[in-house]
C-alpha cells in the first residue's frame, strides 16, 4: 500500500443542524493507515458530529470521503462498516443481560444452529493478538466499564475494522485501563489500521497520537504531526490548548458590581457519586453571594453535571454539606426534558414551578384569568414569540423555549438561581438576551452559572471556578491576566 495515499480523506464536509447550528464547516482531514490520529476540540467543536457522519449515522450536507483515494458513499451504519469504518461510541452499544459472545455475534451472520461455536475461539484469538483480555462467556452487566470497552473493540475488530473511531475513550477509564488501551491502540497501529481518537485531553494526545487535528467551532484550526510538538518545551502544550480553546473575544457586557455580603449558597467538602457509582465530585467547597455570578466552567464529564443535580436536590450527597438560604430557581441544561413539559401549553408551563401559589389556584381549581394575565405579561417582557399562549411548548424554537423557562424562573425572584448551560445551542441574538437577564437578576439573587463555554463564563462571572476531575479551582477578578491560565486549567494542565 502506498504510504502517501491516505486511508481515508475527508473533503469539505459541512453539516448544519435544523436549529441552524453549523457543527461542521468545510472540514478537510487526511487519515493514514498505521497512524493514531487524534481529533482534539472542546465540547461543541464538531468532533462527534464529524465522526457520526463518517460512521453513517448523520448525513453531511456537502463534502465527500475518499477511501484509499477513491470516492465512497456512506449512507448508513451498515455501509460504513462495509468500508471498514467502525465507531466505538462513548455510550457503549452493548446489551447488558447478554454475554460477550452473544453481543459480538449479533448481526454477524454466523451459522444458525451453533452461532457461538466458532466465535469463542475467534474472540480468544483476537484477545491474544491485541492483548485484550475478554471472557466470551461473561455477561456484559457483570463487566467493568474498561472491560466493556474492550468488548466493543473486539466487536469492531471481528467486523474487520480498518478504521477504528474511538469517541472520548478514556473519559470512563481508570489510569491503569487507559495505559492498557493505549497499548492496544499501538498494536492496531502496527498492523496498518487507522485509529481515530477523539478527545479533549491534551496530555493523552501527546502520549499516544501520531498526528493531531484540532477542531474549533466546526473548522480545522490546526493539523500537525505530533512529532512537531516538543513535549518538553515550555509553551508547546499551551500553544495547542490555545488553538483548541481559542482566545475568545470576550463580548463586552456592562457588568457593574453589585456588592453584597449575603451568602445564598454555601457548599463545603461536597462529594457525589455518579450513576455508575464512581465519585465524580471529590470534595468541592465554594459559596455564592447575592449580587454575583459565580461561574463554574469545565469540559463536560468532570463532575459539574452531578454537582448541579445534587444542588437541585436530584442526587444524594455522598458527603459534605450544602446550605441554601431561601428558594432555588433552576434553569436545567435539558430544556425540553427537565425544563419544560412539552405537551403542556405555554401558559401552563409558565406557572409550572408555582402552580399551587394562591395567585394561580384556589384550592384545587386554577384561577385561569390570572394565569392568562401572568403568562401574557411574561411573554411580552421576555419576548417569547408564539402563535398563542395556548399552544404546546413543543412548538417553540430552542431560543423561545429558553426565554420561557428564563421568564418562569427569574420571575419567581428566588434568592439563588442555578443556570446550567443556559445558552447552549442558541443563536447569538438569544445568547445576548439570556446574558442580559441573568446579569440583571443579580440585583435580587446570587447566580450559579455552570457552563462549558469559557467565553460565556468570562463575560458573566464575578468569580470563576474551574472544575476538573471533580475538583474546583477558584479564580478571583481581574481575569484579564488569567484568561490563559483558566483555559489551560480546564484541560488539566
Amino acid at each position, binding site marked *: 500500500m502506498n504510504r502517501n495515499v491516505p486511508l481515508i480523506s475527508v473533503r469539505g464536509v459541512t453539516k448544519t443542524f435544523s436549529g441552524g447550528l453549523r457543527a461542521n464547516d468545510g472540514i478537510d482531514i487526511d487519515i493514514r493507515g498505521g497512524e493514531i490520529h487524534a481529533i482534539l476540540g472542546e465540547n461543541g467543536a464538531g468532533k462527534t458530529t464529524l465522526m457520526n457522519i463518517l460512521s453513517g449515522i448523520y448525513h453531511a450536507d456537502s463534502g465527500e470521503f475518499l477511501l484509499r483515494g477513491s470516492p465512497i458513499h456512506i449512507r448508513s451504519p451498515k455501509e460504513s462498516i462495509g468500508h471498514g469504518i467502525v465507531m466505538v461510541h462513548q455510550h457503549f452499544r452493548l*446489551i447488558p443481560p447478554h454475554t460477550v459472545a*452473544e453481543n459480538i455475534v*449479533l*448481526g454477524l451472520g454466523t451459522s*444458525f444452529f451453533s452461532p457461538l461455536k466458532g466465535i469463542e475461539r475467534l474472540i480468544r484469538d483476537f484477545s491474544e493478538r491485541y492483548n485484550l483480555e475478554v471472557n466470551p462467556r461473561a455477561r456484559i452487566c457483570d463487566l467493568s466499564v474498561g472491560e466493556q470497552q474492550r468488548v466493543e473493540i473486539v466487536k469492531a475488530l471481528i467486523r474487520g475494522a480498518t478504521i477504528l473511531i474511538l469517541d472520548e475513550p478514556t473519559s470512563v477509564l481508570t489510569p491503569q485501563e487507559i495505559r492498557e488501551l493505549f497499548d492496544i491502540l499501538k498494536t492496531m497501529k502496527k498492523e496498518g489500521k487507522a485509529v481515530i481518537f477523539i478527545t479533549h485531553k491534551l496530555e493523552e494526545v501527546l502520549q499516544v497520537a501520531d498526528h493531531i487535528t484540532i477542531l474549533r467551532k466546526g473548522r480545522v484550526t490546526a493539523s500537525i504531526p505530533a512529532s512537531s510538538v516538543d513535549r518538553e518545551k515550555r509553551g508547546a502544550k499551551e500553544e495547542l490548548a490555545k488553538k483548541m480553546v481559542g482566545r475568545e473575544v470576550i463580548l463586552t457586557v456592562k457588568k457593574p458590581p453589585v456588592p453584597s455580603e449575603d451568602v445564598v449558597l454555601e457548599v463545603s467538602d461536597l462529594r457525589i457519586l455518579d450513576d455508575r457509582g464512581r465519585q465524580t465530585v471529590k470534595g468541592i467547597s465554594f459559596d455564592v453571594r447575592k449580587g454575583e455570578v459565580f461561574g463554574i466552567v469545565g469540559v463536560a464529564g468532570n463532575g459539574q453535571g452531578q454537582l448541579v443535580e445534587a444542588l437541585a436536590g436530584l442526587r444524594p450527597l455522598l458527603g459534605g454539606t450544602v446550605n441554601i438560604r431561601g428558594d432555588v430557581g433552576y434553569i436545567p441544561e435539558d430544556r425540553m426534558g427537565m425544563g419544560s413539559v412539552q405537551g403542556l401549553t405555554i401558559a401552563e408551563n409558565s406557572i409550572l414551578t408555582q402552580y399551587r401559589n394562591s395567585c394561580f389556584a384556589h384550592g384545587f381549581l386554577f384561577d385561569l384569568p390570572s394565569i392568562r394575565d401572568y403568562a401574557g405579561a411574561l411573554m411580552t417582557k421576555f419576548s417569547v414569540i408564539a402563535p398563542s399562549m395556548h399552544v404546546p411548548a413543543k412548538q417553540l424554537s430552542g431560543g423561545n423555549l429558553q426565554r420561557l423557562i428564563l421568564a418562569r424562573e427569574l420571575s419567581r425572584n428566588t434568592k439563588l438561581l442555578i443556570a446550567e448551560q443556559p445558552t447552549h445551542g442558541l443563536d447569538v441574538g438569544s445568547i445576548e438576551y439570556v446574558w442580559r437577564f441573568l446579569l440583571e437578576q443579580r440585583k435580587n439573587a446570587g447566580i450559579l452559572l455552570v457552563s462549558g463555554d469559557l467565553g460565556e463564563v468570562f463575560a458573566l462571572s464575578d468569580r470563576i471556578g474551574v472544575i476538573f476531575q471533580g475538583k474546583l479551582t477558584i479564580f478571583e477578578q481581574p481575569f484579564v491576566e488569567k484568561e490563559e491560565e483558566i483555559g489551560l486549567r480546564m484541560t488539566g494542565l
Partner: protein
Amino acid sequence: MWQLWVVETLRRALAYGTPLLLGTLGEIYTERSGILNLGVEGMMILGAFVGFITTFVTKNPWLGFLFGALVGGAASLIHGFLSINLRVTQVVSGLALTLFGLGLTGVLGRGWEGQPLKVSLSEFSVPFLNRIPILGDIVFTEQNMLVYIGLGLALLLWWLLFKTSWGITVRSVGEDPATADALGINVSLVRYGCTFIGGFLAGLGGAYLSIVYRPSWTQGMTAGMGWIVIALTIFSLWHPLIAVGGAYIFGSLFYLSFRLQPWVSPELLTIMPYLFTILAPILLNANRKLRRRMGAPGALGLPYSREEE
C-alpha cells in the same frame, strides 16, 4: 388412595394446561422481541371459534387447529401493524384486539352455540413408556396428541431462543433495538415474526379449547385464559421451559376446580386459578433472588424508530 389422586390430578393437569402453555409460549416470543400484546384473550377466542367451525364443517380436527392458529396469527398482525408501523400505545392496541375478538365471535357465533362437535382428538397411551412407574401414568397414559405437541414446542422454542443465532437476534431486538439496528438487523421484520408466532400459538390454544377441552362453541368460552397467559408469561420469566411448569400448575388448578366440587363450593373453586394469578407474583416478589432475575425485556412495549439527528 391419595397417590392415585395425585397421579390423576397431574395427568389431567397436562391436558388442562396445554392451551395455557401454547398461549404462553407464543406471548414469550412476542414479548422477547419487545412487543407487548395484551390481545391474547381476543386471539384465543378467534382461534376457538374458527377452529370449532372448521372442525364442524370438515369433520377434521387437524384442519380446525390449523385454521384456528392461522386466524390467531392474522389477528396478531393487526396489533403488529399498529405497534410496529404506527407506533401506537401497545397496551391500547392489545386491549382493542381482545375486545374485537370477543365481540366479533359473540356476534358471528350465535347460531353455533350448543351444537356439539361429533369429532374430537382421540386419547391414547404410549406403549411401553406408559409402564414407567408414576411418570408413565402421568405423562404417557391417555393423553391427546396436542399435549405432546405443546411439550415439543416448548423444547423447540427454548432451543431456538437460547441456542441459535436467530434467538440471539430476537432477544437483542427486545432488549435494545437501536443496537440491533446499528448492526444491520431488520428490527421490524423480527418483531412482526415474533408477534405472528404469538398470535399463531394463541389461536392454536383457543382451537384446543373448542375442539378438545370442551368440544362445542360457547360465547366467551376462553373465560379469561388469555389473561392468565399474560400473567404466566411474567411468572415464567420469559423462559419457555419454566412456562411448562407454570402452565401445568394452572392446569391442575383448573382440573381440581371440577374434581373438588362434591366437597367445596363451586364458586370458590372457579376463582382458584384467578386467585393464584394474584398470589403468584406476590410470592415471586417475596423471594429476593427471583425478584432480581425477574427482568422484563429491556425494550418491552416501547415503539422503535431510527432517529435522524
